[in-house]
């Protein structure tokens, strides 16, 4: 049979399916949510079950400034994506760098907090159940922030080499989805660790 006479009976005129990057990232987010759920459950389950101190109430301080940094980076990355879609590459690069700076600032905040907890309060991952669950939950989140920043850094390098344009905006969109997820997880972690957990 020649290719001209299609063996199949009907060809639908419009056939549009979702972008694979969006679906793939949505799946990854579902999978990651399950991982975080287990860590959050462990944190809540072990609340107040530590045999020795220090307790969360004694040592934790609410990191409001750094939380604001992280959450506002969600806004900047969203705006960056919009700018790229409209072809404004310069504004995109500025907003993109701002996102990286805000994310890095958040990580710096976590580092400061851990430094204080370890050296001033003597709380390590092996001190008690609070230390175990706190460092793993917050650390798992921080690891995700780090991965995000590495990927953003790669985009930044490509951008500096003038290789990021409108064609890449769908891919930037998937990265943006990841970052929104990381921020949403922080809202949960923040609520559990700093509000409920104290």
């Amino acid at each position, binding site marked *: *049979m020649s*290719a001209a006479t*299609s*063996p*199949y*009976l*009907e*060809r*639908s005129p419009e*056939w549009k*399916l*979702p*972008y*694979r990057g969006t*679906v*793939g990232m949505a*799946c*990854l987010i*579902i*999978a*990651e*949510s*399950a*991982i975080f*759920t*287990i*860590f959050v459950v*462990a944190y809540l*389950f*072990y609340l107040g*079950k*530590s*045999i020795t101190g220090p307790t969360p109430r004694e040592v934790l301080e609410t990191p409001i400034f750094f939380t604001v940094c992280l959450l506002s980076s969600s806004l900047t990355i969203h705006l960056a994506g919009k700018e790229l879609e409209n072809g404004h590459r310069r504004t995109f690069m500025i907003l993109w760098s701002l996102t990286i700076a805000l994310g890095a600032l958040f990580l710096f905040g976590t580092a400061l907090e851990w430094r204080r907890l370890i050296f001033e309060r003597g709380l390590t*991952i*092996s001190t*008690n*159940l609070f*230390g*175990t*669950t706190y*460092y*793993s939950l917050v650390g*798992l989140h921080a690891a995700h922030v780090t991965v995000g920043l590495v990927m953003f850094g790669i985009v930044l390098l490509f951008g500096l080499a003038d290789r990021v344009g409108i064609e890449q905006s769908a891919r930037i969109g998937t990265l943006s989805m990841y970052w929104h997820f990381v921020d949403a997880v922080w809202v949960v972690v923040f609520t559990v660790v700093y509000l409920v957990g104290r």
Partner: protein
Amino acid sequence: MSSDAMAIPSARTEVRPWVEVAHEWVTTVDHKRLGILYIVYALFFLVVGGIEATIIRIQLIRPNNDFVSPQVFNRMFTMHGTTMIFFVAMPILFGFANYLVPLMIGARDMAFPRLNAFSFWLTALGGLLLYFSFVGGNGLYGAGNAPDVGWWAYAPLAAKAFSPGPSSDYWTIGLLVSGFGSIGTAINIVATILCLRCPGMTLNRMPLLAWLNLVMSGMVLITITPLSAAQIMLLIDRYLGAHFFDTQAGGSATIWMHFFWIFGHPEVYVLIIPCFAFMSEIIPVFSRKPIFGYPVMVGATVCIAFVSLSVWAHHMFTIGMNSYANSFFVITTMAVGVPTGIKIFNWLGTMWGGSVQFKTPMLFAIGFLFQFLIAGLTGIMLSSAPFDWQLSLSYFVVAHFHYVIVGGILFALFAAFYYWYPKMTGRMLSERLGKLHFWLFLLGFHATFDVMHFAGILGMPRRIYTYEPRPGWETLNFIVTIGAFIQVIAILVFVINLVFSYFKGPRAGNDPWDAWTLEWSVSSPPPDYNFASIPSVASRRPLWDLKHPEDPDSRYE
């Protein structure tokens, strides 16, 4: 019209140096080659896991036997369980999904070909790490090599204090790594099915195999990940001195059980749903009828997926939960039997009134139906908490889940091998050897696993190293071991069939079974690009429409 009209001659005919061929296989991102890599890898581990099972059975053939030491025995059942679940069942099902899903939905490859290759090599590395423990597990500790903590690795047995040396770490890291591979493949399958269907293939026209693999992959995303999380916690405990599962510091051993079984039970459905998918493709073709109750099949599958997420603690009735938890898990466990029953009726409804052809794939499919039904019934028995208190951790449970995994999953896999081997290699498997394989395996299977039920009811505990001669046990265990040997012979026949038919089997042609899904429209084996022009479909059985233009399915949609 003959379907040969669409044949595309294979271009790979010249002989090339083996290094080049090997290089091609190692660096491939083609979904068909990766599918075959998954399957070959899993078959290798099937043999390894089978050898371990045989060692277990030889040890138990008579009372007070000392064929292996107790330490080796512990390693054997740990490695047998871990291998069969994570490095046989999972990869082989992913292999079939990889191979078949793009062909069935009219796509040229998976959505993320490189992720696909990455996932396979992660899984391969996981298996390698697990088995490297036999060599590297000893370390400086002299504490035994391979993992011996059981495939659940319950706390505190898996804690550093009770499992010194790195053997448990090989188990943990091996499973963690292969788990990431599974997540990658699941993402890939979902994205492929949602984003790469050919024109006209709405979700409602998709082959059931694609539908069921979509559900399975969705389940993998939320069931493998709790295990990964728990493995990370175990690693933190063992390496950084944390206390997640350390009862000395207020930690809980029970929470490991919960985390493990939140993964462990849905995992059974992750494994069985692709087998349902094989059944839903094979039974209609050999009954010469379209599947009965397509929408109900999809609905029942989704229903199983949801309900199976809330049944995990039926593995934990004996640890002493409160009566509310017990009642909840009894009810949900019984409820999951309902959609499963619907499926069995649908397959029977498909066969009813059809002109059933008893080819080897169909024989295995019918074996599956009977055995999976019995496995489900003993499952309903065990779902009742008081009954479970009597028989939990006995050979009755071992018999039950081997009925699911061997009687159900493995039979379905054999059916799939006989059905799709012609597509993958271009050669038919021998029907004579196939029938011999079927009857031998059926005999061995029932001798082994039917009899295990009785040993369990008589009180034989699982994972027991040896036993005193006592009424009933010796004869039963002897029969069980003989059955295992018969299964080994059947597997040998299967392997001989695979190898022999690859070189000498009759040519298959495009469509040896006169089937209706898109993979049979291309040559066997399919060309690298699958479809010369992307097909466009108008019904659930595109090849039926093609072969019967006077009475296409699309007329009735």
